[in-house]
C-alpha cells in the first residue's frame, strides 16, 4: 500500500514537472538557446544528490566508495561548471541592452540613423 502511494505520488510529480518544463521553456527565444541548454544542463547535475545520499548509507564497500566519489565529482563538475559557464554567457547578453537604455530594449538610439522602418 505504502509503496504504491509513494510511486503514484512520485509519478504525479514527474508528469506535472514535465508539463511545467514544456510551458516554461516554450517561451525562451532562439537567441538564448545556448544559455538555456547550458543552464538546464547545470540543473541536471542535481544527480549529485543521489551520490550524496548513497555514499552516506551503511554497507558501501571500497569499490562502491570509489565509484561514488567519481559520481559526486562528476555531478559537481556538471553543477558548478554548468552554472558558471552559463553565467559567463549571460553576462555578455546582458551588457549591451543595459548599456544603452533599459526602458527601450530595442533602442535604435540615433546610431542607426533613425530610419528603421
Amino acid at each position: 500500500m505504502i509503496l504504491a502511494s509513494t510511486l503514484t505520488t512520485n509519478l504525479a510529480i514527474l508528469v506535472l514537472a514535465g508539463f511545467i518544463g514544456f510551458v516554461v521553456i516554450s517561451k525562451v527565444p532562439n537567441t538564448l538557446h545556448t544559455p538555456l541548454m547550458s543552464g538546464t544542463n547545470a540543473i541536471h547535475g542535481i544527480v549529485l544528490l543521489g551520490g550524496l545520499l548513497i555514499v552516506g548509507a551503511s554497507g558501501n564497500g571500497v569499490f562502491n566508495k570509489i565509484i561514488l566519489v567519481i559520481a559526486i565529482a562528476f555531478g559537481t563538475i556538471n553543477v558548478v561548471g554548468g552554472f558558471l559557464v552559463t553565467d559567463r554567457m549571460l553576462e555578455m547578453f546582458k551588457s549591451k541592452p543595459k548599456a544603452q537604455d533599459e526602458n527601450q530594449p530595442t533602442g535604435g538610439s540615433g546610431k542607426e540613423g533613425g530610419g528603421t522602418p
Partner: protein
Amino acid sequence: MILATSFLQDQSFLDVLYIVAFGLFIQGLRGLSGPTTAVRGNRIAAVGMGIAVLATLLNRFEGNWGLIVLGVVLGTAVGVPAARQVKMTAMPQMVALFNGVGGGAVFLISWSEFRLTHGYSNTATYIAIFSLFAAIVGSVSFWGSNIAFGKLQEIIPGRPISFGSAQQVVNLVLLILAVAAGVDIAAGDHSQAIFIGLLVCSALLGNAVVLPIGGADMPVVISLLNAFTGLSAAATGIALDNTALIVAGMIVGASGTILTNLMATAMNRSIPAIVAGGFGGGGAVEGASGAGEHAGTVRSTSAADAAIQLAYASRVVIVPGYGMAVAQAQHAVRELTKELEARQVEVSYAIHPVAGRMPGHMNVLLAEADVPYDQLKEMDDANPEFQRTDVSLVIGANDVTNPAAKNTPSSPIYGMPILEVADSRSVIVIKRSMNPGFAGIENELYFDPKTAMLFGDAKSAVSEITAELAHI
C-alpha cells in the same frame, strides 16, 4: 524499503527544502526567457541547487564526509577552471562534456545502488526498474556526449563514421541486449555480471548512435543527449524517492525535448532520421552531379571590391555560420559592423536556428563581441527583409543559405527552412574554398550571377575588408 528514507533525519523538513529548491529552479528558468532577466534567472537556479545540496547534507545520519569533500573538491577543481577558461567558440563541446559527466554520475549512482542492495534484493520492483532505466540512459548519454565532445573538439573526425546499412541493426541489437539485461535484473537476477553487461551494451550504444552523426547535426544531438540526462536524473529521483531530483530532472528532460524538436524542425528532418545516421551516400552523389552542371560560373572577388560594395550599400545583412566560429571571427565582424555603421550603413545579423554546432551558438559568439541584442534577427524576422537588402554578407555559412532547399525537390536538404539571402540585391560569400558543406551538397547560391565569392579564412577576410574600408 526505500533507500533514501532510511537515513534521513527529518523527512518533512527535507521535503520543504526540496520544494523551495525546485521552486527556485522553475523561477530561474522563467528568467531565462529574456536577455535582461536571464543572468538573475541562472543565479536563482544556482541558489536552488545550493539549497538542495545543503538539505541533502543536513539530513544524513552517517559521516563519510571525507568522501563527499573529496568528490566535491575534485569536481570543483575540474569544473571551475574549465568553465572560466573555455572560449565562447568552444562552448558546444563544453556543454557536451558537462552533459556527459552528468550522465556518468547517473549510471555510477545506479551501479552503486545495485551493489549496495545486492542486486535490488528486498527492493520494490519499480525502484529496480527506474534505477535500471537510469543506468541505461545515463550510460548512453555519457558515452554519446563524450563522442560528441570528441567530434566538436576535432579529436574524432566530424564526418559520419558508420557501419553503413548494418548500423541500424547494430544499434537495435545493442538496445535489445541492454533492455533484456535490465528485464532480467528487474525480474530478480542479482548477478553483477549482467549489470555490467547492461552498462557495456549501453556504452556501445551511446558510441554507435553518435559516431555516425555529422558535425552539422550536432545541435540536435546535444539537445537530445541533454534531454536524456535529464530523464535519467528524474528516474534516479524516483528510485531514490527524491522529489528535487524528479522535478529538476524532468524539467530538463522536457526542455531538452522541446529544443531537440525545434532544431529538428529547423532542419526539416525527423529526430529518428538524424539518430539513424547523417546524410547518406545519396546526398553526396547528388552534390557531385550538381557540381558538374554549374562548374565554371563562380565569380570571385577581392577584399577591396567587397569593401566598396559594402560601403555604398544602405542596408547590409550579415549571415554568420560555423565558419565564423571556427575562425573566431566574431570580433573582426563586430569591427566591420562598427566601421559600416559609421558610414550610415544599416547592419543587422540574420541567424538560422541551426547555424553553428549548438542551438543559439552564433548568438553567444556575437554577444561576446558586444553586438547589440536587437541587431540579431531570427530567421522568420530576417527573411522578409532580404528583398530590401543591398548586400548579404555570408560568413562561413553554407547549407542554411542553399536555395536548393526551396527549389530542388531531389536535394537531400529539400524542405529545410533557409535564410533567403538569394533575395537580396547582391551577395558576398566568405568561404575558405569551394568545398561543399558537411552534407556534401553544392550550394547553388555560389553560382548565382549576383553572388561574389571572397575566398579565405573568415577572420582575415573580414579584417581585410575593414582595413580596405578605411581607404575609401
